């Protein structure tokens, strides 16, 4: 576990002047007038704020401020809550925001401990957003579905429990596509979340709420879930760091199941360090999840090199494979050029970048949709109207089931249940499910081969930057196709890190483009180390959306 004493090697992260959170004075003077004036600052390209060019760890900044008595946890919580409230009407990131009193109560407890010189966890005073398909005992957990409207689990998911044990404060439940099925967050039964960079655009999905909330600094970090790209694609759309750990690294206990063999809980942060620290907090074997790994959890961020001592080529000797199949037809030019630029940046840092081919790459998408739909058709059987959702009165049991489910599930969920039920039906199993499993094995093998030759693989996180709300809503196939960059990684169970690397046209400040780095199983450490160097040396971009810059000023 990270403790205060062994942090000195990371102090470099704190050399930068802390920004968003550490402007409580401006927060206190917050007024609607400020809000309107902030819209003017939106027109200013954020690149002009050199102070926020490079991301820093908000978690470590908070810790530093708390332990040095520069700020109290209550002040920090208030500043985030203020920003949350300010942005929420526009973004609608949260399905449920924690009771302000209880957030402040938890913050006060942190302050009390610090005042008493008691040990506090690494996430002390850190406001964490939690995707609403992750169970919390003190807040509703609906998975974005009407069928779970008002459902309050009797337990915390293991990941949430661990966050709380380290002093993290759950600030609310973030919006998502119903049960994680979607890539835009438009599939939520309750609301559509907007992209903080351009409110007319989707934040991506399914963890769109978690990504938007972190991007807009409504919380420090957030938990999402990634079944086919649901952490990485919204991270790319919202310009934040998204980390999908190796399958089995983080307990799924308390994650409302979509496709059990693919689901992982992942992390969002505004810096690689934050994503790594959060991952460390939630990782490890859990006796409640027999698919969770027994492997030791390394201090993911301990090998981060201080910028001060960065050599000119800190990644010298690393072999990076750029996946050929991810830069071809159907991928936006803006995206391709951003990824190419990222690749040459990696070369500048000392990496040798070569193209690799994953011949099975294009097979991953249909295989993913067969497997994910099959598993979801089973996992969602429990929502039968007997115990969840609004039970439809019926004279016959089958009618009760049919009607309750017809009214409780949204169209995308129904589509996947139907597809999965079909794929698992007698006579079709071999042609679909079994075949998809064979593809999965192929995908695993080809990744294995590529990662034997390379330290990491890189690709875009999505074929395009964020698109307009409604643009693909009625074209499920187009939306599914958008998952091409990410689903293979889930099929192989590998870890992947997405971090912003450039911009595409759109919005007032352009729309962020994410670079995906894929590592070998359980080698998150390497991904994070490379990602950290990448982000600390990437100049000329700021990934703070205008909505934040405006608010803070």
């Amino acid at each position, binding site marked *: 576990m990270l403790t205060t004493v062994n942090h000195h090697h990371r102090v470099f992260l704190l050399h930068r002047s802390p920004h968003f959170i550490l402007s409580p004075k401006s927060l206190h003077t917050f007024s609607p007038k400020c809000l309107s004036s902030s819209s003017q600052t939106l027109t200013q390209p954020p690149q002009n704020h050199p102070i926020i060019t490079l991301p820093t760890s908000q978690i470590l900044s908070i810790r530093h401020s708390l332990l040095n008595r520069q700020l109290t946890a209550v002040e920090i919580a208030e500043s985030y809550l203020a920003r949350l409230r300010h942005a929420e009407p526009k973004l609608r990131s949260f399905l449920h925001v924690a009771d302000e009193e209880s957030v402040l109560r938890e913050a006060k407890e942190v302050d009390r401990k610090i005042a008493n010189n008691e040990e506090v966890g690494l996430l002390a005073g850190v406001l964490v957003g939690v995707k609403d398909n992750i169970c919390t005992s003190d807040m509703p957990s609906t998975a974005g579905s009407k069928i779970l409207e008002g459902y309050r689990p*009797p337990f915390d*998911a293991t990941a949430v429990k661990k966050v709380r044990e380290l002093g993290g404060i759950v600030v609310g439940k973030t919006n998502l596509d119903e049960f994680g099925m979607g890539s835009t967050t438009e599939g939520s039964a309750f609301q559509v979340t907007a992209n903080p960079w351009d409110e007319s655009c989707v934040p991506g999905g399914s963890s769109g709420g978690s990504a938007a909330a972190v991007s807009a600094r409504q919380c420090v970090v957030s938990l999402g879930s990634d079944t086919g790209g649901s952490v990485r694609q919204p991270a790319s759309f919202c310009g934040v760091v998204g980390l999908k750990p190796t399958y089995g690294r983080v307990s799924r206990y308390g994650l409302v*199941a979509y496709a059990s063999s693919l689901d992982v809980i992942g992390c969002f942060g505004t810096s690689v360090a934050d994503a790594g620290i959060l991952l460390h907090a939630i990782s490890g074997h859990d*006796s409640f999840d027999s*698919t969770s790994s027994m492997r030791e959890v390394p201090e993911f961020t301990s090998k981060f090199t201080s910028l001060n001592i960065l050599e000119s080529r800190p990644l010298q000797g690393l072999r990076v494979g750029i996946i050929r199949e991810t830069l071809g037809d159907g991928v936006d030019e803006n995206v391709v050029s951003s990824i190419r630029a990222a690749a040459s940046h990696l070369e500048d840092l000392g990496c040798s970048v070569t193209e690799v081919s994953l011949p099975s790459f294009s097979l991953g998408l249909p295989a993913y949709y067969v497997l994910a739909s099959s598993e979801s058709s089973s996992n969602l*059987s429990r929502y*039968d109207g007997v*115990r969840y959702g609004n039970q439809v009165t019926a004279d016959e049991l*089958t009618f009760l089931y049919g009607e309750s489910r017809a009214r409780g599930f949204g169209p995308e969920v129904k589509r996947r249940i139907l597809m999965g039920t079909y794929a698992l039906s007698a006579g079709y199993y071999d042609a679909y499910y079994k075949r998809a499993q064979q593809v999965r094995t192929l995908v695993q093998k080809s990744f294995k081969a590529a990662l034997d030759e390379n330290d990491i693989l890189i690709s875009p996180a999505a074929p395009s930057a964020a698109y307009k709300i409604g643009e693909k809503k009625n074209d499920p196939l187009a939306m599914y196709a958008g998952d091409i960059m990410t689903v293979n990684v889930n099929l192989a169970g590998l870890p992947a890190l997405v971090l912003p690397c450039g911009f595409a046209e759109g919005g007032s400040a352009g729309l962020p483009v994410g670079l995906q780095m894929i590592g070998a199983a359980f080698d998150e450490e390497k991904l994070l180390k490379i990602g950290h160097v990448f982000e600390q040396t990437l100049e000329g971009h700021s990934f703070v959306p205008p909505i934040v810059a405006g608010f803070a000023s």
Partner: protein
Amino acid sequence: MASLLFRGLQVRPLCIYPSSLLTKKVGVFYCTSNSLHSQSVTTQNQPKTQSKVASRNQGTTLDKLLKDYEAVIGLETHVQLSTITKAFCGCAYNYGSEPNTNICPVCMGLPGALPVMNSKVIEYAVKLGLALNCKLSLNSKFDRKQYFYPDLPKGYQISQFDVPIATSGYVDLDLPLEYGGGHRKFGITRVHMEEDAGKLIHADGGNHSQVDLNRAGVPLLEIVSEPDMRSGIEAAEYGAEMQRLVRYLGVSNGNMQEGSLRCDVNISVRPRGQVEFGTKVEIKNLNSFSAISRAIDYEITRQVQLHNQGLAYQIVQETRLWEEGAQKTVTMRKKEGLADYRYFPEPDLPEVTLTKEYIEDIRDSLPEIPELKRRRYEQMGLSMQDVIFLANDVNVAEFFDATLSKGADMKLAANWIMGDIAAYMKNEKVSINEIKLTPDELAELIDSIKKGTISGKIGKEILFELIAKGGTVKGLIKEKNLVQITDPAEIEKMIDRVLAENPKQVEQFRGGKTKLQGFFAGQIMKESKGKANPGVLNKILLEKLNAKS
């Protein structure tokens, strides 16, 4: 089922912890029917399970019917394992608990909850697989069997589909002598692990049903037999052997009334000589071995009669229910093709991998199974009647074995156990483990009689005291001064006294009424308070009576 109103069918555990459920729901559910409670415990250890399986009359009509037809019967047996906790969570299961008191997020199937395998279930499955002479799968897996029913909280049952843990075994058994006896070997197709569902409680006259999830997630082993049985008796005996086996192995209490052992029958009838099977009918709701036998005999009769009337087409693939009251089977549901359970591998559980060492360790720790016990008793020279009786109940067999291990005479020990001890257990409705008599003391008792320390009659008297109150044979003999009188001088004194008191009878004896010897012996025994050694007594008595004639 379908006609029920499901308006109120609900368990609403959503906003509350299971613990608070307890307090809240107590009183809302009143559990199951009374009949289930009233006949629980006692039957378990009574060695009579295989008796009276069918009435003789029906037997003879059946024999006639079966001249031209042959029944083909297979059984599916569900055994509820007596593990401390459920298959995939830490909940206990206690039959008859208040509804919804042994539940947690896992067995309730709450969103986000995941199953974690109870390794005891695998151990028990391996035990049973080995005892059934099965081939064990070193790599097996769990699958989801999917169907909707309110007692199935996840909408699927975790089971094993195409790779069960054990396959291709067999079981040996001996048919009861009253049905002609004989040895049989029936094939076992497979044994697989799965979880039980909850229970629906249909309120009397209500328009709703309630769900009790206590049983949900309780581990089961399903044993599928080959279609090797040909009569109700064979099927019932197969079921009884499964019960014996799981009790011998200690993997289940095998109690049919509590549903710990459930048998479903698959049966078809075909003209003799025909190779292909007839149309298969499944019979459910069989709550005793005799019900299995009677239901099969009924079903054979029904199907053969349809054949004889040229109405064989009316035999359709269906599930029929045995109605105990009416003593007949009735249609429950007709199957339209095969039900599609959309099995697929359970992604929440790792594969089950057995190492050779693990299997061998379990094999080495297996107790003597019923068949081996019977063969051993047989070789020891016990009669088949005794063999079947003693091996029927594992506790009786262990009692018998323990008695022998103390050096008791085999035949005498068998007689005591099957005679007076069994009679006592039957009258008092107790098991052999509940009586106070220990194998040590039974051996001591037998030895004391054999050595002549006490008479057989006295032995019988103190046996009941030992059974009811306990104590030791030696202690009781001393306490009650029961040591047999073998001293001829002492016995002679008593004889003299009795002869002196009954001169008339002495005269009559000497006049030829030799039957009176018994009268004298009785009087003398009474004089000795039953303690006189009968041999010595009779010898001297005869000498005396004859001497003076």
